[in-house]
């Protein structure tokens, strides 16, 4: 009741009650063009889930799993092997050996190779695993998986955001027990968890995209959660534990004041979701400018045929580097006029940082000097 009154007053006066402002990109998040300056190692539409395994780099493109060849570091990547699955691949996790967990949109999780080869997990305690957005092997027999949303598949992530769903959950699965058993829920009611990493102290780090924050889950204490990094100016996705300590975080789409405003405009939002193709919503996206049917904002109008880098945009390229305590250190950007948008996965190989930009369909390689890392 008080909340409703406050909202009504805020509505009358026209100010925000700290809900629809977007944090500035400043400090460690100060924009640069480092991502655009990277070398394009592979152009591949819908490239995603770039993972470094014992057998080399793997990634996905739609429903295809690709093994990548990189014999010469001076040369671009080459596709060594392709294999198609029955549904789009939503996540990949390596157990450090030959085992690979493959998330399939709407279907569940499939383990290929290693000790549990062929194992399928399509439900967790009778709840379907419909949206496996991230997975992580804690050891060869223990898998942590995030179900992004109980209401929407991973492909319908825009609907999950604009519908203000928060039905994601994180599970720990003991693979050594039989099928169906050994799944334990660590957290629920999350707003699209889509990245998991193991912290140094045994805690699990989970990115909660729609709440623009990273949380820490303590499996020892029944999945108690605490906020590690919040108020991000973009939606966080995959987290990579860097080889030299600290973390890389892929932020797949930027927050936008107009989107935050629309999120509070229930009437408009409902009609938009009912009547309009998600590609043309007022919503963040992995890549923009594909069609003239996409909405644009005032600052994104071209002047003298130039798109300004600081123009408001639905898509962006952003990778954030944090230290061991999850404090932002530096960041890599591809701004509104850039061409490495929608970064969904990061991998490290030979001291190089490989960045898979699903929106722009490219894997970009960066060699980072001391000051930047």
């Amino acid at each position, binding site marked *: 009741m008080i909340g409703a009154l406050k909202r009504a007053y805020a509505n009358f006066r026209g100010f925000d009650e700290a809900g629809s402002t977007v944090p500035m990109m400043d400090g460690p998040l100060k924009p640069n063009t480092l991502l655009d300056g990277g070398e394009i190692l592979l152009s591949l539409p819908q490239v995603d889930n770039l993972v470094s395994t014992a057998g080399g780099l793997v990634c996905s493109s739609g429903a295809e799993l690709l093994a990548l060849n990189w014999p010469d570091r001076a040369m671009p990547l080459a596709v060594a092997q392709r294999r198609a699955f029955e549904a789009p691949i939503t996540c990949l996790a390596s157990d450090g050996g030959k085992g690979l967990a493959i998330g399939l949109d709407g279907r569940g999780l499939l383990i290929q190779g290693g000790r549990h080869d062929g194992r399928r997990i399509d439900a967790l305690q009778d709840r379907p695993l419909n949206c496996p957005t991230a997975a992580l092997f804690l050891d060869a027999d223990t898998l942590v998986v995030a179900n992004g949303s109980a209401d929407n598949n991973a492909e319908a992530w825009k609907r999950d955001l604009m519908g203000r769903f928060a039905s994601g959950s994180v599970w720990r699965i003991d693979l050594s027990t039989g099928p169906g058993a050994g799944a334990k829920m660590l957290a629920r009611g999350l707003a699209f968890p889509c990245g998991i990493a193991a912290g140094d102290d045994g805690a699990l780090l989970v990115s909660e995209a729609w709440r623009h924050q990273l949380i820490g889950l303590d499996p020892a204490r029944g999945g108690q959660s605490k906020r590690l990094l919040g108020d991000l100016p973009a939606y966080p996705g995959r987290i990579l534990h860097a080889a030299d300590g600290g973390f890389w975080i892929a932020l797949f789409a930027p927050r936008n004041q107009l989107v935050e405003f629309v999120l509070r405009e229930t009437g408009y939002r409902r009609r938009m979701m009912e009547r309009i193709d998600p590609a043309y919503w*007022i919503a963040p996206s992995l890549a923009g400018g594909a069609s003239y049917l996409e909405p644009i904002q005032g600052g994104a109008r071209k002047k003298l045929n130039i*798109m300004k880098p600081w123009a408001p945009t639905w898509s962006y390229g952003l990778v954030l580097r944090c230290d061991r305590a999850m404090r932002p250190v530096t960041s890599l950007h591809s701004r509104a006029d850039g061409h490495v948008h929608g970064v969904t996965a990061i991998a490290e190989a030979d001291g190089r940082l490989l960045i898979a930009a699903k929106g722009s369909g490219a894997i970009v390689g960066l060699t980072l000097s001391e000051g930047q890392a």
Partner: protein
Amino acid sequence: MFSSETLTRLRYRYLPDHLIGEILTKRWIDNAVPFLALLVAVAVFGTLIPDFFSLTSLTDLGRQVAEFGLVVLGLSIVLMSGGIDLSVSSVFTLSVLLSLIGTNVQVWPVPLVLVAVLALGGACGAINGYLVGYLRLRAFLTTLVTLIIFRSIYDLLFLRMSTAIVAGFSDSPLLLFIGEGTVLGIPVSLLVALVIALAWHIVLSRMRPGWRLIAVGGARRSAYNAGIKVRRTVFFAYVWSGLLSSLAGFLFAARLGSTGADTGVGLEVAALTAAVLGGNSLGGGRGSVAKAAMGATLVLILTNGLTNLGVSGPVNSTILGAVLIAAVFVDMRWLRNRHKWLSKVYVSPAYLRLPPPPSAADAGSPYALNDKLRSVEIIGLGQIEGPEDVILDRDDNLYCGTRHGDIVRFFGPDHRRHEVFAHIGGHPLGMAFDRAGNLLVCIGGMGLYQIAPDKEVLKLTDETNRSLFSVVDDSRLRLADDLDVAPDGRIYFSEATIRYEQEDWAVDALESRGNGRMICYDPRNGSTHTEIHKLVFANGVCMASDGCSFLYAESWTCSVSRYWFDGPKKGRIERVLDNLPGYPDNINRASDGNYWLALLGMRTPALDLALTMPGFRRRMARRVAPDLWLYPNINTGCVVKFDESGRILDSLWDLGGANHPMITSMREHRGYLYLGGVSNNRIGRYKIPGADPNWSAQDAYWGAPS
């Protein structure tokens, strides 16, 4: 039962929200609050006090208003000049004393008394003015000191003269007439005050000295830089304050014929309350005679009413003080927030429902996507900025406007060299040649101009007739957009919107209301009149083949209509094109008898939906920064060809906008199509397959040169 959308539509059709913003732009809106307060005060005390409206009580009030009002007017003049004059009350009191000495003790003739009193007031004011204006002392402290000094002089003199004043008596009929006479039922003193108020109103609102006074109060440094003699202006403001106060004192003396120890005590606070309550800003630069008059009346009604109701003097003063504090508070809030409120409520979206747009995706559609415009030849890249319209003359020279206010001419046939053909100062938009070869140009923010072949610039018109019920003065042209010339020489041109300046044209899309109009300029008698009202962003204009009608585009409704200005169908409007996939801009003739139409941007489903939800757009305009508002997608444009029956014959696209993200104009000339864009930095040249290589629009309009 109405659906909610029907209700929305009706509500936005019949409740004119945009008027709130327009009323807030008026200067007289400052008077609204004091005026309402005055009405409330009259209503309240009129009902509480039995004979409030009786003739004697009104006459008495009138005399008091005259005296008090003159003091308030003097103080308001000083406030407007950016200062303050607290000494008005002691100048008033001194004047009362001098008047009585003149009439009762010395028995001077009444005109001499008046002159003496005015000289006294002027001298007191000059002392203040010299100290504040020339010596630059703080107005508040200075006039506080003179208030005390003048009062002390009064006290000293009053002690000596009081017996003589009471003993003396004036039998001058003139004095009696001034003090108690009426003309046509109006007290003489009120009449005098009204004449003075009227004179000051004219001076302040219509004459140079008044404007200078207000300029000095509004921005002293700017006024100085503009060449206004700031010190002298301030000096005379105080002199006038002294003169008006002393006149008030003279009238007071004439009315009462006596004075006391408490005459004029607290008058400065009452006058200040009245001035501020009326809406004269303490900060200077804002004020008027009407405000002073309203404030004076309001305060008098308040104090007299309270006295009548038996409220004691000290309580009365306390109430007056509280009112002063409240008035100062409101004044401060109002001044600080008025422009904020205005910017929040000015954008007022209307309801607009567009049918689902035709798909351009399938190959069978007349709008089928292609990249024909991607590989156009580029003219003038980086040399021009903002060629909204392009036009070619018979010698193949290419003309375009730029946002720097120039009309640039590229020399034919290769268009490599260019010159500034004419500098006008505003951004040139639509262009046309008349029969004599004069270039006619619509200039955003300026109006309709003509440039003769010898480069002589002539303003044809910059205003039209004012609409009957408009709140803001809509006679001045704000955004003349495109034009065409009828065979008899009449020029029909569109004004896109009367609510926004040219740079903010896209905000008008957020409103999507009929803010535009079609205007006719008749060179035969130099008259201008509005031909069609309430068009939704009236844009391109092109004469139809019959010579007595023209086609015009309305951008936000995505339609093209035809209007007959002559002939048997005179006055009729027919829709030609409906439901375009984008927002139409300029229309021009094609060599095959059809018409080219530029689409400046494309419709997006998200904006189409928002157009049916005005409340959503209004909240967006309030909460979200303008650069983040939802806009029409003007990063992709296209050109279509259509015929008079409304069939789309062809479309030319530049998908992704590599060269021409936004196309506002196109002109066919000798087999080529020339493309312009209002925010582009180039002109495109596209070879039209199969077009007549000898056709030029000038010949088509005016016949081949003989």
